[in-house]
């Protein structure tokens, strides 16, 4: 799914239009714990998170997350936006919550991009 479609589905606003590269997003990951993201996310996913601090951007950079959606209208700081811009990571802000956005994206065909912990996928 193209990032532009994801932005539509989450009714999001792009916070650093400078890096609005229309990435192909290959899956979704919803989590608030960064260690969890580091543990399970596969490269090329969009990260939906209710957490909003500079470590989210760092985590995305380390784990090759393509784009970040901040939930419930959370506004990243200028510092975070600059860092993300430097690392080519689009930041998107949405007023919706985790449950609704995971639901909408999943139903729109964007599948989970987290490793299933027992190693099997249904």
């Amino acid at each position, binding site marked *: 799914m193209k990032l532009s479609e994801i932005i539509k589905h989450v009714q999001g606003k792009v916070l650093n239009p400078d*890096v609005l*590269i229309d990435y*192909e997003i290959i899956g979704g990951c919803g989590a608030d714990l960064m260690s969890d993201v*580091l*543990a399970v996310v596969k490269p090329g996913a969009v990260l939906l998170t209710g*957490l909003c601090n*500079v*470590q989210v951007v*760092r985590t995305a950079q380390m784990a*090759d997350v393509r784009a970040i959606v901040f939930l419930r209208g959370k506004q990243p700081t200028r510092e975070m936006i600059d860092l993300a811009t430097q690392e080519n990571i689009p930041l998107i802000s949405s007023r919706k919550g985790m449950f609704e956005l995971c639901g909408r994206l999943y139903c729109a065909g964007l599948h989970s991009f987290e490793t299933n912990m027992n190693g099997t996928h249904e």
Partner: protein
Amino acid sequence: MSNTIQEEFGRKGRPITDVDAQEITRIEELSYDLRIFEVMSREVFSLSSKQTMRDVIDLLRIRRISGAPVVDDGELVGVISTEDLMRALTQNDLESPIRKYMAVNVITVKSYEPVVKALETFTRTNIGRLPVTNENDELVGMITKGDITRGVLVAIRKDYKEEEIRRYRVRHLFEDITSDRTSLTLRYKIKPRDFVNGGQASSHIKRAMLRLGATAQLARQCGIAVYEAEMNLIIHTTNGGILRVQIEPHRILMQTTDDGPGIPDVNKALQPGWSTAPQEARSMGFGAGMGLVNIKSCVDKMEIFSGAGKGTRLMMEIHLRPNEKFMASTEGTQKPGI
């Protein structure tokens, strides 16, 4: 995956990417860096004001130019262009001296001025070619927009070549150095409780790995491992610690050391979900007791040396598989003749 980004953009008309933006910035920079004398044409076809308008026709036709400076005794006295020629033609006055038709208020640029000055003058005056003079107001060349474009392109190509050479050198770093054992060490000092800058060292490490030619997967594994280790130093240590990465042709060694407070029960710390992290760390999304578990899954070997009241040493090691050996190992691939 359906289409690549390039294909998608090829169809729809392409928005400006960061790469473009970078290049545009570079062109802007160059228009200030480059001096007019670096891009102007030095071959100037000038006429004297005593020559006739017929001479103008010959010069413009032969040289395929649309205007020329008029110089008397080394001094620039005017310019003559096709427009002036048209006037002479309509009056059937080709035998008159150039003096009669030339423009005398000559707009010039100085050879030592930056290229951007010429661009501004082009835009302001709508003139397509400008005479260039030196400090002594002597005519030394002509400049057109085409000259500027060419000059900028040459400069960019030079930039690009230099970058290529730099990349090549970095990637083949180890090939050119002969020793029994070569390694590159990156060392970072990590401050305690510095949550805002947390991850900066890891970010530098990941970027360095990619620059050295590591695969995306290898850079990611190392990045995640050192990031968790870096956050551990920030969250738990009394005085911070040192993060050190040693890159060798056959392996990556990563290590953190600190001077306390130490881990009383290392086995417990290795259990998923076990954590002593304070609220501050949890609110940053860390401290959920998954750090060491994550590290373990990213590296081939992990060891912790610690104890209550002692410092902690965390060792992480990744063995490089043959296809991951990124700094063109010298081991076993001795070049002939050495």
